[in-house]
């Protein structure tokens, strides 16, 4: 029984991992773009973007999942996501990417704005272009400062993926819960916790390693 449960939980965990990895892959760069928008001098850009960030951070991810999954069907009259598990995954991914990109953008904005004006001025008097200044001077200092808050978000994301079950996205808790109905046993549900713990433990180690790697400067 243990092996059966383990195998089937692993299968569910694969779904969790897929959503986790792809969300990170898209939301980190999108978050950077949004953070530039939210710092833009142009009001036309800044105000709408800050409004979106407010809405996304101010409403539950669970609700956003539902709106993104059912919204197109209701408002456009057709189901954008198609039927089947592929469509549900896409809808979940879009909701997660938008949500996490907004959170990341605020972390990036904080990191970028915490770099002293003197760094920009020193780069300017040395004749560096804006692009050179950002990539050669600013970026690494920002990364160093945002590793702790980003690691927080990433670990939250591991656990947030379980929210996607609200649109019937197949992940590990879904799988664990199935055993209650099919076999009348509850321990597989608790067992899923071990998967989360081990995975977030690995992430903690990885972020600790990155922090150490960036320890050579202040």
């Amino acid at each position, binding site marked *: 029984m243990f092996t059966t449960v383990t195998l089937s939980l692993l299968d569910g965990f694969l779904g969790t991992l897929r959503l986790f990895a792809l969300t990170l892959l898209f939301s980190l760069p999108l978050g950077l773009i949004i953070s530039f928008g939210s710092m833009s001098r142009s009001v036309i850009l800044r105000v709408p973007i800050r409004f979106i960030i407010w809405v996304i951070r101010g409403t539950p991810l669970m609700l956003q999942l539902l709106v993104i999954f059912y919204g197109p069907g209701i408002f456009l009259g057709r189901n954008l996501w198609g039927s089947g598990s592929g469509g549900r995954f896409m809808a979940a991914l879009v909701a997660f990417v938008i949500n996490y990109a907004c959170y990341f953008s605020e972390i990036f904005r904080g990191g970028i704005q915490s770099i002293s004006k*003197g760094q920009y*001025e020193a780069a*300017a008097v*040395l*004749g*560096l*272009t804006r692009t050179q200044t950002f990539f050669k001077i600013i970026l690494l*200092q920002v990364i160093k400062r945002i590793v702790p808050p980003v690691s927080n978000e990433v670990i939250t994301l591991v656990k947030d993926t379980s929210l996607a079950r609200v649109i019937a996205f197949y992940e590990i808790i879904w799988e664990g819960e199935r055993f209650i109905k099919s076999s009348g046993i509850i321990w597989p549900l608790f067992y899923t916790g071990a998967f989360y713990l081990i995975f977030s433990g690995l992430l903690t180690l990885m972020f600790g390693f990155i922090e150490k790697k960036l320890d050579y*400067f202040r």
Partner: protein
Amino acid sequence: MAILEVKDIKKNFGNVEILKGISFDMEKGQTLSILGSSGSGKTTLLRCLNFLEIPDDGEITVNGNVLFDGSCGNLSDSELNKSRLHFGMVFQQFNLFPQYTALENVTLAPELLDKNRNRQDILEEGKVLLEKMGLSDRMNNYPHQLSGGQQQRVAIARALALKPDILCFDEPTSALDPELTGEVLKVIKELAEQHTTMIIVTHEIEFARNVSDEILFMDGGFIVERGAPAQVIDNPENERTKKFLSSIHRKA
């Protein structure tokens, strides 16, 4: 011919007039010190020369090339970058790049500005500059491993690496512990002896007297007195200059 001609520079921040029309010129190889109380506009003047602030009006000419002319409208980023390279800048707060070693701080800009140049040459030049600053054993240290005085000397080497026509110092020792100011003032004095063209904004009156060919005294956005150190510091004519100097002497 003057290496630098500044004509009627004006700068406002909001409704506050910081520079109300500054004009002066200087010869190549000269050291010019700018004295004045806080708020007199001396740092703003230096920042205008480096285009960290864009003057509202006036004209800046280096070696006969007009870099800025109040009527020339908005300068593009690339024009600004080119104009800036005539000036070097050493900041009060050093502003070294923390993720780079002392040597990398010095060589970064030369490498980025001219990708065709031999890296080895740039590296050698960087090492020579740091040796001149007395930092031959500190080249591979990161800024946080250096004392304030050492950091400021790296910053001077970094500014010199681009061979600016005029090197500007914005209160280079104001952020330093008193026991560390000497080592920085010493290298600036050496640069003066080698006829590096320099503009120094400073509160170190004695140092300004020793090192400068000429002194400008600024007050309320104007240059109120200008002349040789002996004249401006020892025999000031202007009331404001007298008051400022006597307040400094009282403190000392």
